């Protein structure tokens, strides 16, 4: 299994959940991965283990995606070290729930800073490398609730709806440069983020998934491998639902 062999990828939010699994699958498929986490040193061990296990190169980078200067330094670093960037996965995200009437400005800012503004910034930075090489695949993490909406998640769902919209727009703008932009819209995936809604709600949601189980981070990572690879070379501007036919 080597469908990402020698492709240079940058993935945000690699220390846990879906991002951790995307990192694993990309390493398994032979990619050179610049893996981002916030806490300094937190990826050193796993990067070394994955490099040894799959013989691929994993380079940890540490920054908060809201820090535009650090994100820029990271891209300069990638340009110097690898000279190219084939795949960007904008995975880092935050989810905070609040009912209408209880949504304050700091909540809106917290969510949009990470889920939307940082994503736009990363795309602008990746564009600098990808436009020169005239190729690239950008994968954004949207959500089923960004398309369908969900009670209690006005801000989060709006941020993920924004991700779907910015994916479609950047796909249109960047297609002439052979840069593809797609989003994955996960349903209910078994990670810390999803579990944070509480056990009772998890059970309730489970009964609304027609395929009869929660999604796994691997389900999402496999979609990311496909969208990052040349197997999807004619696919752009798509929001790929990976949700086991879930209802929200």
């Amino acid at each position: 299994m080597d469908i990402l062999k020698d492709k240079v990828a940058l993935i945000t939010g690699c220390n846990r959940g879906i991002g951790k699994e995307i990192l694993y699958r990309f390493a398994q498929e032979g990619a050179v991965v610049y893996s981002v986490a916030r806490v300094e040193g937190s990826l050193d061990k796993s990067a070394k283990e994955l490099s040894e296990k799959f013989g691929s190169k994993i380079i940890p980078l540490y920054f908060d995606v809201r820090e535009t200067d650090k994100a820029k330094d990271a891209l300069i670093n990638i340009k110097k070290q690898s000279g190219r960037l084939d795949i960007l996965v904008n995975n880092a995200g935050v989810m905070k729930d609040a009912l209408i009437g209880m949504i304050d400005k700091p909540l809106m800012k917290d969510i949009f800073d990470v889920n939307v503004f940082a994503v736009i910034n990363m795309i602008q930075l990746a564009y600098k490398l990808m436009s020169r090489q005239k190729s690239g695949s950008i994968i954004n993490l949207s959500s089923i609730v960004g398309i369908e909406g969900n009670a209690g998640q006005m801000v989060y769902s709006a941020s993920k709806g924004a991700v779907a919209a910015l994916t479609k727009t950047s796909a249109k703008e960047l297609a002439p440069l052979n840069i593809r932009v797609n989003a994955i819209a996960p349903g209910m995936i078994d990670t810390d983020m999803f579990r944070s809604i509480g056990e009772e709600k998890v059970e309730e949601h489970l009964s609304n998934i027609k395929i009869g189980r929660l999604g796994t981070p691997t389900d999402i990572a496999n979609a990311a491998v496909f969208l990052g690879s040349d197997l999807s070379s004619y696919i752009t501007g798509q929001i790929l639902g990976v949700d086991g036919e879930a209802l929200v």
Partner: protein
Amino acid sequence: MTNLEKYNKTFTETLGISEDELQGLEYQGISQWDSVGHMGLVSAIEDEFDIMMDTDDIIDFSSYEKGKEILKKYDVEL
């Protein structure tokens, strides 16, 4: 080649104009320096001087002369 010669070359090659058109040249002053031409020019300058310009500077880069000022921030003396 001096830095100034390199800077001029990015304009003449990217926008397809001659050196004597550079003084006083402004963004959107000629059809080639439209928003698409602008991004091409920025890429050429970044490649020539091995820098990565900030978005604010890309937006501020409104003329041939302004570009020189902006490059100083990136330690490129013309």
